[in-house]
């Protein structure tokens, strides 16, 4: 009787008991088919063992990807927070309806910053505008300063 694949795996891993191991070894010496199956099990086992090594070999690229994604997420989050703060500045000095006039749908944070700065500079003067924009950036994630640049 041919041993099951589970028994072959256990034999290959050395987890079968002594009596079962002896019986499988006797069978393998006579059965070429089961010997081939055992070789297949061992090769698959080797491939599985080699899998993490391949991942490790390419892990640098994976980490960079994760870091880049995190950076992008942070930038996006900072830009979103900056947009909210710029809206608040416009609302505070001009009124809530002014936000709808200044900000067009889908306008990037950089453009909104430019328009808000210009609006504040014209109506409050350069010093007042600078203070107001500094206030908008106060305590914001460092990624937002890239938007300002």
């Amino acid at each position, binding site marked *: 009787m041919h041993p099951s694949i589970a028994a072959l795996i256990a034999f290959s891993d050395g987890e079968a008991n002594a009596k079962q191991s002896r019986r499988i070894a006797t069978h393998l010496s006579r059965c070429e088919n089961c010997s081939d199956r055992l070789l297949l099990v061992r090769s698959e086992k080797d491939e599985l063992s080699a899998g993490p090594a391949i991942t490790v070999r390419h892990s640098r690229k994976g980490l960079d990807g994760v870091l880049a994604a995190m950076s992008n997420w942070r930038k996006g989050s900072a830009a979103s927070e900056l947009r909210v*703060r710029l809206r*608040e*500045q416009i*609302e*505070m*000095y*001009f*009124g*809530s*309806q*002014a936000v709808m*006039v*200044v900000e067009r749908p889908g306008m990037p944070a950089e453009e909104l910053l430019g328009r808000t700065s210009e*609006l*504040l*500079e*014209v*109506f*409050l*003067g*350069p*010093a*007042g*505008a*600078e*203070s*107001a924009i*500094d*206030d*908008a950036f*106060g*305590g914001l994630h460092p990624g937002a300063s890239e938007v300002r640049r």
Partner: protein
Amino acid sequence: MRQIDGGGHCIVPRRIMVCLGAYLMVDLLAVYLWSSAGSAFSIQTPSDNTATLPLTAMAGLGLWLCLRVLRAFPAGAPLRRAWSLIAFAAAAQLVWGVLSQLFDSNWVLNSLLWTASAPSTLLGHIRLGALIAGGPVRLAALAGALFAVLRTLRKFGFWGRPRATDWAMCGIVCLFALCRFAEALAAYFAGAQMSMEEWASLAGLPILCMLFVEAIFLGQAVIRMGSGPVSKCWSAFVWGIFSIGFADVALWLIPHYCRSPLGMVESLAGFVTTAVFALGPAYQLTAQRWARTAGAPQENLATHASAVAR
């Protein structure tokens, strides 16, 4: 981002509103008493004198606020010219207040009455100077300023089409100007001699019509902004122009249709207009203070707030 304590910073506009409210209540009470007493006594002469100091003081406050606002706009700033013209208009209003109210009335602070009897020609010149300063000169400066402001507002998209009611109000003022011109022409062709004061008064009417048109466009721009201090500033100018126009119409209509203390109404209208115009730079200064406080270091915030309150 810091939260601004709006109450502490709006102290100047609030005080102007309180003064305006108190003045209105006292004047309306006086008119009520006068009408209740069956017009038995005259309140024309005393009202001229009692109006002198508050009106001139309010004009002075308006000029001082304009000069404070102007400091925030360096040379080359887009609204520098507009605020310079507004400050010039406020100065013209103060000159009008000083000349017409202080030197052209029989009250104790009139220095012309201390020395000798003032010659009538000098008083005539003073009256004419006051009329020109407070009339065409001031209105022209305001019209120039509002034109610059409207151009800037349009650039930023704060532009709206006036409503039918706006055009109706504008039409009333234009009709009033036409009536005044028709009256003057009828008097001229009837052989009546027109004084320089009348010419000066008439010269301001076309500018007033132009100001009304500007005011209705500015009003639409303010509606598109909302209710921040900057929009309240320009809103105050809109109401100031409306109050000039309607005061002129009222002062022209009152003698035609009813008996009422004209001197008191005139002084009341003058004070209301001056106070409303002073609200403009007061709100602008509030906005500038908010910005400065927002940019101030955290530890100095309490000190700055108390300084502003003082």
